[in-house]
C-alpha cells in the first residue's frame, strides 16, 4: 500500500516533514512525496485512517492537500495529482475504475514529477542543520553545475523530455484519447508501435502498474567532530594528533556511509576568542584519515593561526564516494589522494601560485599564461600516440620571467653589440640578427581612460593569468640575435623609453 502527498499551497519541506512524521520510507519526487504505508495499519488503522493522518500531519487545515492512497505507487501518485482532497482505493480492481475518469494529462504530470525527482536525486539534498557559520553553498553549487552522465537528470535533458511529453499529449488528443481509462483500453502492442517506449510506459501507468520501486530518501549524515582542549596548544605538531583523533572516526563513518569528503572545514577556536577558519576543497572524494590530516596540516602550515588553539572543530562535506574501474589497456592514473598531497606539499614549499599546470591564454602578450590546478587527464587513445612519433623537434625558448636589462649598440637600425651587467650570460658582438617584429597591446585602458575596461579584458582568466596580462600595455620591437659565442637571444626594446631587454634564450 502506498500514499502520495502533494499540495499547491504547502511547501515541499512541510510535506517532507509530514512524511517523516509517519514513515521513514518515503521518496520526494518534485512536488509530490510518495510514502510506503504498508506497515502503518497497526499504528493508524486502515487506508482511510492513514490518509486522514497524513492530512493532519501537514498541519494546515486550509491547505489544499491532495492525498492518494492506493495499492500501487503509480496509482497513489495519479490519484494525488488528478483528484482533490483525500482519495482512498483499497483494492486493485477499484483502482482502475478510479483512475479511468482522470484526464490523460495526469500521465504527463506524473512523468514530469519523476523527472524533477531525478534532478533532485542528482542534486545534493538539503544540508542538515549543523550550527556552522560557513556558507555551504560553495561546494554544493559546483556539484549542481557539474555535468551529469545521464542526460535525463539534467535540466537540459528535462526540457527536451518535457517537449517530448507535450508532443505525445498532442498526438493522443488528435486521436481523441482524453482520459486515462481510454488510454488503458488501447492495445499495448499497437500503442507501443505508434508512440514508442513512451506509449508502452503510459499504457502501464494508465493501468496503475508500477514500473519502478520506491527509493527511500535517506537524510545526509552530518560528519563533524569537535574537541575542547584542556590546555591551549601552539604549533602544528600537537595539532596533528588532535586532528588525527577527530578525523579517524569521521573517516570510518564516511566509509560506512559510502561517502567521501568533498570539502574539509577546519575551525580553530583561539585563545584570543577569534576563530581561524580554513576550508579545503578536495579535488576528488577521499576518506583516508591520514591523507585528510596531512592536507589539513599542510594548509595550516601555509595559513597558521594567530594564537594558541583551545578548541578544534572539523566538518566534512560529504559526497558520493569515488568508484574507479581499472583497465588493463591504459596506464593507471595517479590516485587523487596522492596528487592532492603532493600539490599541498609542493605549495607549502614553493608558495601559492607556484605549483600547477600551465595553460595558454587567448592573448597576444608575449609570455602570457595561466596556471591551473594539476589534474592529470585520462590517457588519450592510440592515434594520438602514433602522431607523436612523427612530430618534428621544436626549439625551446627559455624565457626570463623578469626580463634582463641590456645595453645594445645599434648601427644602421640594427643591433650590433650586446652587453649586460649580469654574469653567466654570453655577450659581445652580434653576428646575426633578425627583426624587428613589432607588437603592442593592452594600451586601450589608458587610451579610454577607464580602468574598468582593464578588468574586463582580464576577466575569465585565472589570477595568475590576470597577473601576467593585467600589466601595463606593451609596445616593443623584438629581435632574434646571435652573439659571437653562438648563443641565440630574443631581445626586445621598449619603444617608449628605448630600453633593451633580454627576453629569453633560444635553446
Amino acid at each position: 500500500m502506498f500514499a502520495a502527498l502533494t499540495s499547491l499551497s504547502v511547501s515541499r519541506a512541510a510535506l517532507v516533514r509530514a512524511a517523516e512524521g509517519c514513515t521513514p520510507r518515503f521518496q520526494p519526487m518534485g512536488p509530490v512525496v510518495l510514502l510506503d504505508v504498508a506497515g502503518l495499519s497497526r499504528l493508524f488503522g486502515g487506508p482511510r485512517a492513514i490518509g486522514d493522518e497524513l492530512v493532519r500531519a501537514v498541519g494546515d487545515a486550509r491547505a489544499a492537500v491532495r492525498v492518494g492512497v492506493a495499492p500501487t505507487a503509480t496509482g497513489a501518485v495519479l490519484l494525488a495529482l488528478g483528484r482533490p482532497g483525500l482519495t482512498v482505493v483499497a483494492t486493485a480492481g477499484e483502482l482502475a475504475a478510479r483512475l479511468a475518469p482522470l484526464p490523460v494529462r495526469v500521465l504527463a504530470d506524473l512523468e514530469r514529477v519523476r523527472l524533477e525527482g531525478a534532478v533532485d536525486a542528482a542534486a545534493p539534498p538539503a544540508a542538515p542543520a549543523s550550527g556552522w557559520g560557513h556558507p555551504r553553498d560553495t561546494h554544493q553549487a559546483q556539484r549542481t553545475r557539474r555535468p551529469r552522465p545521464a542526460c535525463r537528470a539534467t535540466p537540459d535533458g528535462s526540457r527536451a523530455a518535457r517537449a517530448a511529453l507535450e508532443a505525445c499529449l498532442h498526438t493522443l488528443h488528435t486521436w481523441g484519447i482524453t482520459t486515462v481509462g481510454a488510454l488503458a483500453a488501447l492495445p499495448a502492442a499497437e500503442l507501443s508501435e505508434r508512440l514508442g517506449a513512451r506509449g508502452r510506459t503510459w499504457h502501464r501507468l494508465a493501468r496503475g502498474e508500477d514500473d519502478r520501486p520506491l527509493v527511500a530518501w535517506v537524510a545526509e549524515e552530518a560528519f563533524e567532530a569537535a574537541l575542547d582542549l584542556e590546555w591551549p596548544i601552539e604549533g602544528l605538531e600537537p595539532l596533528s594528533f588532535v586532528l588525527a583523533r577527530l578525523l579517524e572516526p569521521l573517516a570510518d563513518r564516511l566509509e560506512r556511509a559510502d561517502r567521501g569528503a568533498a570539502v574539509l572545514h577546519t575551525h580553530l577556536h583561539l585563545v584570543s576568542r577569534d576563530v581561524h577558519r580554513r576550508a579545503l576543497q578536495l579535488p576528488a572524494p577521499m576518506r583516508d584519515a591520514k591523507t585528510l590530516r596531512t592536507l589539513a596540516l599542510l594548509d595550516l602550515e601555509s595559513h597558521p593561526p594567530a594564537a594558541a588553539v583551545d578548541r578544534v572543530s572539523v566538518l566534512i562535506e560529504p559526497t558520493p564516494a569515488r568508484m574507479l574501474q581499472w583497465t588493463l589497456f591504459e596506464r593507471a592514473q595517479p590516485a587523487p589522494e596522492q596528487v592532492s598531497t603532493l600539490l599541498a606539499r609542493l605549495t607549502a614549499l614553493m608558495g601559492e601560485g607556484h605549483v600547477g599546470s600551465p595553460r595558454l591564454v587567448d592573448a597576444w602578450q608575449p609570455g602570457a599564461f595561466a596556471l591551473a590546478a594539476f589534474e592529470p587527464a585520462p590517457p588519450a587513445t592510440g592515434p594520438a600516440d602514433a602522431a607523436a612519433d612523427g612530430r618534428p623537434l621544436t626549439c625551446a625558448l627559455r624565457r626570463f620571467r623578469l626580463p634582463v636589462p641590456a645595453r645594445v649598440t645599434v648601427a644602421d637600425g640594427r643591433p650590433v653589440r650586446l652587453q649586460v651587467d649580469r654574469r653567466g650570460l654570453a655577450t659581445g658582438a652580434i653576428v646575426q640578427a633578425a627583426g624587428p617584429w613589432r607588437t603592442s597591446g593592452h594600451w586601450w585602458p589608458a587610451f579610454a581612460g577607464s580602468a574598468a575596461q582593464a578588468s574586463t579584458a582580464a576577466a575569465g582568466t585565472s589570477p595568475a593569468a590576470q597577473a601576467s596580462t593585467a600589466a601595463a600595455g606593451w609596445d616593443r620591437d623584438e629581435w632574434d640575435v646571435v652573439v659571437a659565442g653562438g648563443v641565440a637571444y630574443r631581445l626586445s626594446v621598449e619603444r617608449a623609453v628605448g630600453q633593451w631587454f633580454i627576453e629569453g634564450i633560444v635553446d
Partner: protein
Amino acid sequence: MATKAALEALLRDRKLDRTLIGHLSAASADEAGSPLALPALDARLLGGLPRGQLSEIAGAASTGRTSLAWAWLSAATRRGESAALIDTFDRFDPASGAAAGIELTRLLWVRGQAISKTGAAVDPAWLPGVRMVSGPGTLVERAVDRALKALNLVLQAGVCTAVVLDLADVPLAGLRRIPASTWLRVQRLLEGGDAACVLLVPLPVARSAGGVTMLTGVSDALAGGVRWAGSHDRARRLAGVSIAARLVSPRRTLCGDVGLEARVDPSI
C-alpha cells in the same frame, strides 16, 4: 664463469640484479626505455631514456639541450603519462612548451624563484665583482635548495613518470656546491620505479650507473649551431638549431653522436 652466472641468476631471482656491475642487455634496456619520439635518438638510446634511472642533458646555451628535454616531456605526456618540470628559476615558457607538443594538462609545473637583476631581492652572487657568498643564504642557493626538495617530493609521491629538473641556469659554483649524496638519494628514490628523471644542466653533474648523459654542442664530427633562413637582412629569420648530441652511458654500451634539427615554431 659458471659460478658467476649462477650467482647472477640467484641475484636476479631475488630481484637484486640491479646491484650487478656489467652491461645491461639490449632487450632489458629496451623494455625500460622512455622514448623521446625522435627515431634517430631513440634508436641510439635503445628505446629511450632509462626508467628508474637518473639521466642528464648537459650543454651550453643554444645547443638544443632544452629542446631535447621538452621533446621528452612532449613524448611522455602524449603517451598519457604525467610529467613534472621542476623549474628552478621559472624559465619555462608555456607557449614554447605547447609548440613542442607538451600536453600542458599532464604537466606539473613547479615554478621556482624568478631571479633577475631588476628584482627587489638582488642576489649578490650575480653582481659582477662580488664573490659568491658561501652558505645557504644566497637567493640562488635557496632556489636550488627548494628545487631539490621539490624534486624529492615529486619522486617520493610517484605521481609523475617523467621528471625534469631544470638547473641549466645555475652557476657552476652553485652546481658544485650540491653534495654528491643528493644525487645518490635521488637515484635511491628512482630505483625500481617506472619514473625517469633528467637533469638539465650546463655541464655534466650526475647520472646514475644505468643512466644516460646527453651532451649537446660538443661533437666535432657534427656541426651544431643556430640556423637562419633568408639571405637579406630584412628577410632573415631564425630557422632553428642544429643539435649535435653525444650520448654517454658506459653501462648501457651507449656512446656516439647524433645529429638532430630543431625548428623554430612561429608561435613562440
